[in-house]
């Protein structure tokens, strides 16, 4: 059984990972070679092919850092530094995570409220949706600095502006998913409520809300990833001193490509973690609601 699942599940994953790493190394060698060749010519160094490849993979500021360089950087900055240190990835991740979570929380609540409004108030149904969709066509990179500048002018800074950008990105999938979810009960289930002469409030809590749960969690998975993107983007243009976004920005100022890649890794680990947590939440709710195991 275990060897079976190893073969069927682990093997394909490992194969893909190996292929990606191989391609990455190849790209690193090819991309870093011109600079290294230039350097060697000026320094009048001649080296064998193997030595040359070795050097392309150990430049301090490579165009494409080699996988092992990034791994070492991530490892050092995650485990070997104090978490309060400005160089610690844990510290920066936490800064980004806190505004992600605040924004995700607000975005989810806002999205649910909007969906409830749309489903229950005909005027909102007609008027709100086009605005919501329009809101998402505005490039977030254009909005983020304005929000931060306007808010700092009224002395709101730090976590709140970043969380608001996350909210802006994350309410949308929740609102859209919940509108669909709250409208998902079949006619017979709604008729049943009518035969009991149930109040709209009772119909909402006993029928629409439970029926919308699977939709909510699917949307939340999208929303939590969007929140993270929002938080990182909000850190980019604002001269933020901490966070994964500021780490990316600093890296690009000083051509510290390895740091940038390490920050990217930290971001994707964070995203995977957040989506997994929402997934676990979804499974717990499923179990509470007696969903037939697949």
């Amino acid at each position, binding site marked *: 059984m275990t060897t079976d699942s190893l073969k069927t599940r682990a093997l394909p994953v490992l194969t893909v990972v190996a292929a990606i790493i191989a391609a990455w190394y190849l790209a690193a060698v090819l991309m870093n070679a011109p600079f290294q060749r230039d350097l060697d010519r000026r320094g009048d160094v001649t080296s064998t092919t193997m030595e040359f490849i070795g050097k392309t993979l150990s430049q301090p500021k490579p165009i494409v850092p080699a996988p092992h360089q990034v791994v070492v950087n991530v490892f050092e900055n995650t485990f070997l530094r104090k978490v309060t240190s400005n160089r610690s990835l844990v510290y920066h991740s936490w800064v980004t995570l806190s505004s992600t979570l605040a924004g995700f929380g607000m975005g989810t609540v806002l999205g649910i409220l909007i969906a409830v409004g749309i489903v229950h108030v005909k005027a909102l149904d007609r008027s709100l949706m086009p605005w919501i969709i329009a809101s998402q066509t505005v490039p977030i990179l254009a909005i983020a600095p304005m929000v931060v500048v306007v808010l700092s002018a009224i002395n709101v800074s730090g976590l709140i502006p970043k969380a608001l950008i996350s909210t802006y990105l994350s309410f949308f999938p929740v609102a859209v998913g919940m509108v669909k979810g709250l409208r998902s009960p*079949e006619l*017979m*289930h709604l*008729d*049943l*409520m*009518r*035969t*009991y*002469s*149930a109040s709209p409030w*009772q119909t909402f809590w*006993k*029928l629409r809300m*439970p*029926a919308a*749960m699977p939709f909510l969690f699917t949307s939340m998975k999208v929303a939590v990833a969007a929140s993270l993107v929002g938080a990182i983007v909000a850190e980019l243009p604002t001269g933020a001193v901490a966070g994964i976004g500021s780490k990316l920005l600093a890296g690009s100022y000083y051509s510290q490509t390895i740091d940038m890649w390490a920050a990217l890794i930290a971001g994707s680990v964070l995203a995977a973690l957040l989506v997994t947590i929402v997934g676990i939440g979804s499974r717990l709710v499923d179990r509470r*609601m*007696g*969903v*037939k195991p697949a």
Partner: protein
Amino acid sequence: MTSSPSPVVSARKLGLTFQTGDGPVHALSDVDLEVAKGDFVSFIGPSGCGKTTFLRVVADLEKNTSGEITVNGMTPEEARKARAYGYVFQAPALYPWRTIEKNIALPLEIMGHAPAERAERIERTLDLVNLSGFGKKYPWQLSGGMQQRASIARALAFDADLLLMDEPFGALDEIVRDHLNEQLLKLWAATQKTICFVTHSIPEAVYLSTKIVVMSPRPGRVTDVIESTLPRERPLDIRETPEFLEIAHRVREGLRAGHSYEE
């Protein structure tokens, strides 16, 4: 019409016309009918004859466009608000996130019964439909027939004297259906409820009913009302007696008459 002092359902010249893109559809026209207390009335007829629509008008799920109808002497809306009836749909319509007992508790929660009373009623109605011990199961863990029994239990859990059943056994196989028909008759005898029952099946209608309403489509109308002469106590093999077959024959004739100038 019978001279029963207060009929449970009384319809006079009842009509319902749906306005559709292809013009008006006369789902019901000129329906005159009385259902007396304690009756078991079956509505039988081909698709589109308005039998389900009639039931939905009684339940205030549709509004009649002409004529008059009273339920327990009130308008259907008042009757619905007074929770005068329990409705059993074609499908069990159980909420999948609730266990069977929670599903039965649903109307009780909505109508504000206390938890202790809820538990007592759940137990009693589960017993009535022979589902004792299945209360903690989720709907998907039960067979189709058991699910439909659970939905009947849900309709019985609160004290409505009128039970409206819209082809409740239509999706079930013959063996299960026979069994449920037998149980339904016992239930009817035990609870003294008035039952309106929509069906496609002639034997089912004849076996269950004290009164059979034969309907025909376009426009949906009543073509015959047959008072059953069968005794209230009905074992399954009553279906082979000449009396039963004669009533079934009359129903079939009625259905054919309603159809004759269509095809």
